């Protein structure tokens, strides 16, 4: 495997974590609910996957267990932010603190234990023999194909090419109008917030089942926040979000390459690259032109709970 192939391979693998979480966050924010609990959900998903797989489950079961846990926690979050209408920023931060703290406490006995089973690579016949690209793109584990191809395309079609997608975007942009048109605002919000949280927890499971196959305290390392940032960068569009995640993955891969090749830069400094790159992704397009800023604008009712009475 040459350098470029290796870089792309690692970039795809590393980018999968924020990509999956960002897709979930796109769902949540498109219906108008900002979920800042991604970091905590990811930690919970990661430790769920570790606990189940160390106890003998196969990776698929571990992954689904994490998704199910995220779904349940997400329902709780949706109940509080959508039905009770509590402040979304505070509840998200609370979820991050609770998830991170609980996962660290549960994970203590599992720290450093290598996982007995992880997702094996699925080599796609013929395509994997393409020079350069084949090894990097078509011999990944099954989740990589799902995260980069199936989910973003599916979500894009759902959001922008179906009646239901139009409805759910209306819920995020103008819930009062959507309500008047007979769309079940609260129900749609509840469902998409819960599923989005499930995605975030699944991203945590992907982290420990595919990328760093063991638990350690702080293993999530801000990837949840990076996912939230990527959604803003992507202008709340699923395909852009995944491409942004790939860029994030590339900076991670570059850091690994630097460490492997003994570049004269400290590993700690190379580890800063993904965060700085994400910051640049956030600020540069917005600074570029007001037109871009308008194009990438957030759903108009993002963060605002919907009160039917207040009209």
């Amino acid at each position, binding site marked *: 495997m040459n350098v470029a192939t290796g870089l792309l391979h690692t970039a795809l693998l590393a980018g999968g974590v924020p990509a999956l979480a960002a897709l979930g966050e796109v769902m949540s924010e498109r219906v108008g609910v900002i979920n800042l609990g991604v970091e905590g959900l990811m930690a919970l998903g990661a430790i769920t996957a570790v606990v189940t797989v160390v106890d003998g489950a196969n990776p698929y079961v571990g992954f689904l267990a994490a998704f199910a846990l995220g779904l349940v926690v997400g329902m709780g979050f949706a109940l509080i932010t959508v039905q009770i*209408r509590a402040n979304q920023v505070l509840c998200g*931060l*609370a979820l991050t603190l609770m998830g991170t*703290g609980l996962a660290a406490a549960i994970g*203590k006995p599992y720290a450093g234990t290598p996982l007995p089973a992880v997702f094996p690579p699925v080599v796609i016949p013929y395509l994997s023999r393409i020079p350069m690209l084949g090894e990097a793109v078509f011999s990944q584990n099954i989740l990589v194909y799902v995260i980069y191809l199936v989910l973003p395309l599916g979500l894009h079609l759902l959001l922008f090419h179906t009646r239901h997608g139009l409805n759910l975007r209306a819920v995020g942009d103008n819930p009062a109008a959507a309500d008047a048109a007979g769309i079940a605002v609260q129900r749609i919000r509840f469902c998409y917030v819960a599923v989005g949280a499930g995605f975030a927890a699944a991203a945590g499971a992907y982290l420990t089942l595919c990328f760093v196959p063991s638990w350690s305290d702080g293993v999530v390392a801000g990837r949840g926040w990076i996912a*939230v940032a990527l959604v803003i960068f992507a202008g709340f569009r699923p395909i852009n979000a995944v491409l942004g995640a790939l860029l994030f993955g590339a900076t991670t891969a570059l850091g690994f390459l630097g460490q492997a090749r003994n570049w004269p830069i*400290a590993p700690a400094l190379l580890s800063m690259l993904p965060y700085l790159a994400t910051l640049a992704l956030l600020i540069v397009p917005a600074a570029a032109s007001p037109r871009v800023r308008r194009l990438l604008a957030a759903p108009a009712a993002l963060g605002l709970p919907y009160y039917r009475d207040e009209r």
Partner: protein
Amino acid sequence: MAYRIQRLPTPPRAIALTARALAVGLALITAGVALAWKGASPWSLAHEVITDTFGSAFALEDLALLVSPLILTGLSVWVGLRVGAWNIGAEGQFNSGALAAAGVGLFVPGPTAVVLPLMLIAAIGGGVLWMAGPALARAYVGVSELITTLLLNFVAALLVYWLATGPWLDPGGRAIGTTARIPAEMPAVWGGVHWGLPLAVLLTLGAGTLLNYTRWGYEIRVCGANSDAARYAGMPVRRHLMTVMLLSGGLAGIAGMFEVAGTVHHLQGGISNNFGYLGIMVAVLARRSTLGVLAGAVFMALLLNSGTILSTRGVDVSIVLAVTGLVLLYTAIGDEVAHYRLVPTRELPCP
């Protein structure tokens, strides 16, 4: 008699405070139930925490040492909220302040009376610098400071870790991963408690006075409440936003300096000890009240201290973070529920 539910735009003060108290109490009860479910006895643990915290002057000093950084990080977030900015990056500004202070402390020779003020200035500079990017991006490009300040936390933590284990590593030290002892020390005011605590209280009262009793403070609060109205009234919204955000960064930087010069005396990885994140809690618990910042800091210090005590009894210290989240969650719910009231519906006479 039938009742219907009515939502008030602003909750009555007494109800809001009651909801707060209930939220905190319920969070602690939930944590106790969880501990009992795990097989521990919450009553005996609570008893130990209370006796260990208030039992000796030494323990109280430990508590006071936790209060002063929490006041300052809490104040940092609280000040930001007044102008409508969420500073989730107090953790990073704390680290960069600590780093700048340690740099001066380690490499600038001189008497303590000269070095300490220099460290303070460096720390303020470090905090302000760490906030400069997010403040500019928010004020001029409209990028949410929530995410930008937070992402810089990780950068600052890595930078501190790198310096403490690399270029600034104590060459003759036995401990791994810390710098040499910084010679300049904050003088003590009471036992092991340094001057950071009274200074933090003074800074809080000063900031509260500025915000509540000056024209500048009034304009800041208008900008925070409704920036469109502020702009229409001719207030320099951008300038106010920038000033307050940078001030917020500087305050968190001071917290870092106090920790380095008063308590830890080294620069080491993890020196920020989640003080920045807990500062968010302090600010949220305080609501609009200045004295609330002090009360919130004491409460969070008690919680943090309980975690340390419990960790010697086999309870994982990370649980404190989870309980903190629980308090925040219940507080958010309580704040919303406080808006509602039941009003009796009068039967209309039949025509």
